């Protein structure tokens, strides 16, 4: 049983490698291979989840003198649930993609890359060694890079892909250093051993390591200030967005913090709470203002993942994972549905959508459930998971708890508002252009399947090991009130002028919100341009100064040689002068040496 954990990452990985060897025309075999790999992982994950125990497997991977890297994997029940969620979403994405990318001649490598992406995420989920985790972690970054840049018709795709990779890579600098710091001070990269050795470390070191790891997690999970890549990443095909937002990349950060939860106490927890608070409110505002359906969803992901970070900050790991799972379900659903919507509407812009509820009932139903879960309408999954985090925050109290709680309540209101707004604009109102149609079966079934956990996960969770605590009155009531307030406000605005986007009520602030508070511009001014200029300067200096010194010495030699050769072009008398002068000079040297003036 334990060794079968390896099937989780290795089955999709092997299928990915096999898929890369398929010729570009082999759509069917490529799809079959990719689906098989993911399915094996899915079955394994389900088996492990039902097994209900904790499984380990470890073998030595690399020895670097004093420290060893292990190929160690472990599956706890929680990890098994996450693995199930990842495998499920990935499997559905694979199926969906086969239809979605029907006309794409680069489907074959795409399918393999999605499989590799899945494998990398599963490796993160199961790995019990920080370095092994880092392998999966960065492999995900590379896969996201490849998939975001997939669409060659979109001129912005390559730039978005590079941005995604680079921003997360900047975070990974911190993660690498954090892992190194932990490994050095605890003598091991194995997570249980590292956590067990934490009490022996100085608090300062623990905080430093925690913050460094946080940088990596924030990068992958698109948390402030490393969030700017995620909205741009929408340039990738929609199923890839679903994968990134629901099951892989973004969830990985939260999951990593969950694995290293004991690190986050004291100052580190405050920082996490701050990051979460800033991110959840800011992203929700951006989602409220954005005109692009996928961007709304993207900002909402940023905001929702911040909830998970909030859970980590208040040491409610299980609650965070609970939200991760429910978010995986409804966000995957939303994205896959959005793909169909965009397909129908012919573009991403909300302004060009409307009235789709008639033509596409399945789409309408499932996406409505998704938005409702996102907004936190009871008894859908999103309500329970968000509530458990805020409940924990209320229970924790103090600076951290209050920060998370109040930011959470504000965000809940904003979430309800933007979810309502998007729902209204897409499905209600007057149809603009096509009234649409439901997607073909291969794209429809994944939506229907995902609707099940979207609805039931919250209730089911009380039967499972994730969170056994029933909701308390405080803060449930304020949360519900905030939800109602947000939804109602948007609805009322919309009712007054159904043809107008409720976001116009934001007035002058809207463009600022929609642009993510101008963070991209700031990032460009503070990082991109200085580094580019520095690069030009370094290049200039290298040629002019470093190499210039080398060339200069050559020129000096050459000029000296010319001068010396010139002296020799003066006929015999000069040779005689040299001879006589040489004798005198050397006699002087000899005398100086005799007098002890030499050395």
């Amino acid at each position, binding site marked *: 049983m334990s060794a079968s954990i390896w099937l989780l990452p290795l089955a999709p990985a092997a299928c990915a490698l096999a898929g890369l060897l398929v010729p570009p025309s082999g759509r069917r075999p490529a799809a079959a291979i990719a689906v098989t790999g993911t399915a094996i992982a899915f079955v394994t994950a389900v088996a492990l989840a039902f097994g209900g125990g904790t499984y380990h497997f470890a073998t030595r991977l690399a020895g670097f003198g004093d420290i060893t890297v292990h190929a160690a994997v472990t599956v706890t029940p929680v990890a098994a649930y996450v693995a199930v969620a990842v495998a499920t979403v990935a499997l559905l994405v694979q199926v969906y993609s086969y239809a979605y990318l029907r006309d794409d001649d680069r489907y074959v490598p795409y399918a393999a890359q999605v499989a590799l992406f899945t494998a990398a995420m599963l490796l993160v989920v199961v790995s019990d060694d920080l370095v092994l985790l880092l392998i999966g972690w960065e492999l995900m970054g590379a896969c996201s890079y490849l998939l975001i840049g997939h669409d060659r018709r979109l001129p912005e795709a390559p730039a978005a892909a590079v941005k995604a990779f680079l921003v997360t890579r900047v975070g990974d600098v911190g993660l690498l250093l954090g892992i190194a710091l932990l490994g050095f001070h605890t003598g091991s990269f194995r997570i249980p051993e590292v956590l067990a050795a934490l009490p022996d470390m100085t608090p300062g070191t623990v905080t430093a390591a925690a913050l460094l790891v946080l940088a990596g997690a924030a990068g992958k999970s698109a948390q402030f200030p490393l969030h700017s890549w995620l909205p741009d990443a929408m340039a990738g095909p929609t199923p890839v967005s679903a994968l990134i937002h629901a099951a892989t990349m973004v969830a990985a950060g939260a999951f990593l913090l969950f694995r290293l939860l004991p690190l986050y106490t004291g100052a580190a927890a405050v920082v996490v709470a701050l990051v979460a608070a800033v991110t959840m409110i800011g992203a929700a505002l951006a989602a409220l203002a954005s005109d692009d359906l996928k961007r709304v969803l993207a900002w909402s992901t940023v905001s929702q993942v911040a909830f998970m970070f909030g859970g980590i900050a208040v040491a409610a790991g299980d609650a965070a994972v609970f939200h991760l799972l429910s978010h995986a379900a409804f966000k995957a659903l939303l994205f896959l549905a959005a793909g169909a919507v965009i397909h129908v509407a012919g573009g991403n812009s909300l302004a060009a959508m409307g009235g789709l509820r008639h033509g596409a009932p399945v789409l309408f139903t499932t996406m409505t459930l998704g938005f409702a879960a996102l907004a936190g309408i009871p008894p859908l999954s999103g309500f329970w998971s968000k509530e458990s985090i805020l409940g924990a925050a209320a229970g924790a109290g103090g600076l951290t708890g209050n920060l998370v709680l109040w930011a959470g309540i504000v965000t809940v209101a904003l979430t309800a508002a933007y979810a309502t707004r998007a729902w209204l604009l897409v499905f209600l109102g007057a149809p603009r252009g096509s009234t649409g149609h439901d997607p073909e079966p291969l794209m429809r079934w994944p939506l229907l399947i995902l609707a099940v956990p979207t609805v039931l996960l919250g209730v089911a969770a009380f039967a499972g090991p994730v969170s056994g605590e029933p909701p308390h009155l405080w803060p449930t009531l304020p949360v519900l009130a905030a939800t109602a307030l947000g939804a109602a406000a948007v609805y009322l605005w919309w009712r007054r002028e159904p043809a107008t986007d409720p976001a116009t009520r934001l007035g002058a602030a809207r463009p600022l919100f929609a642009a993510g508070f101008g963070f991209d511009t700031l990032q460009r001014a503070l990082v991109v341009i200085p580094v580019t200029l520095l690069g030009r300067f370094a290049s200039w200096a290298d040629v002019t100064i470093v190499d210039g010194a080398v060339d200069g010495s050559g020129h000096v*030699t*050459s000029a*000296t*040689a*010319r001068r*010396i*050769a010139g002296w*020799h072009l003066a006929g*015999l008398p*000069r*040779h*005689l002068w*040299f*001879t*006589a*002068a*040489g*004798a005198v*000079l*050397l*006699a*002087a*040297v*000899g*005398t*100086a*040496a*005799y*007098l002890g003036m*030499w*050395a």
Partner: protein
Amino acid sequence: MSQTIDHVALLPAYLAAATALAVLLTDLFSRHPVPRIAVAGIGFAATAAAAVWLGTLPPRQTFCTDTGCSLVTGGPGAAIAATTALLGLAVLALSARPLLAGDAPPGEYAFLLACSVTGGVMLAYGRDLITLIVALETLTLPLYVLVAMRGGSRRGAVAAVNFLLVSVTAGAITLLGAALLYAVTGTLHLTGIAAALRGDTIPLTAVAVAVIITGVGFKLAAVPLHGWAPGSYDGAPLPIAAYLSTASKLGGVAVLLWLVTEAFPPVLHIAGPVLTVLAVATMSVGNLLALRQRRTVRLLAASSIAQAGYLLVPLAGLTALAGPPGTAATAATAVLVFALFYVMMEVAAFTGVIALRWPRADGGELGDLAGSLRAAPGPAVVLLLALAALAGLPPALAGLFAKITVVSSVAMAMPWLAVVVAVNAVVGLAYYLRFGVLLVRGRGTEPAPAGWPVTAVLALSVAALVIVGFAPQLLWRLASFG
């Protein structure tokens, strides 16, 4: 004060002198050039053989007084004498065809060469100031005439006068040094000088030591006594230029070695700095000068100046010797080993140029040799190998070992001097590379066939380079000062 004379010890010198005499007699009795050349060749071979044989015997000495001996044999001396004789043979082979063609009078040519070789052989064994200086003059005087022997060439005559005037001036400086040395020590034997210098010295001693080293430096074309070399080499017939840059230098090396090892051990603190300045100036100026040369022989001449600078480096290292006894011997061994390596490379280089320029008597412009590799692969490969050796790089391992010899001798005692050598070798590589690339690129004009004597010298010089490249220890065995 009657002396017994050890004629065995004098055998190589006898044979060399006899060669000159025999050539003169043959010239009288035969009208044909071949016998004269043949007699000279046999004489040189016999001299070399005798020198080698003498080298295998235990050291002998003769003309001894109570202050020392005027003539001493031994391993290093044998190496120098034999090499000089072989160089005479090589030069003779290289000149054989032009001599037969009547470009120069074969009798005079061979006689003068034999005289010069006699001087060189005597230098290998002489151990007093008179013997050494007379031998040095015997080595040099015939060369004034030989340099001029390029068939009716004005350039040859100019080169000869150039060589002559600087040489006699330098000779006078050498003599001044010798006279001063005699004045401060009262003896002419090198061992006696050493004994006298061991006591109190006066400032004039320093001047005497410096001046005699300076004078000998002329033979090596050491800077600043080098100005004559490029012009004289370029004006001389190519084989004589080869002789000037090898045998003539070897003579200077011999004198310097005997002075430093026999006479100057007590005043190394004076000789060392003088040699250091000489070494640094010689290699630096030589290399820089070579960088700007456009004529083949001038380039080789300037490069041979630079090589003389490297040669002086191990001796220069003596400054820092407060060290164990035998260190001077080690340095001297290094010098001689380098000199032998150098002689081989230089012969190969000049022979290559001769073969590529055949039947022209001068080296021409560098551009005249462009594309030689395609036109005449054999000599071009030899020349390339010789250039690589002079640059001190594999595949010419001999050159690499030569460079290693120099650097290893001072790396510990005077690292800065070793670094100066390193920097100089870089400058050297620049022009050797340029020359080498020139030979490889394009398609040049094919030279006339140079005949078997040149081919033989070509083959033998390459063989020598390759052999000492793979078995460098041979040279240390030959040249060890023990």
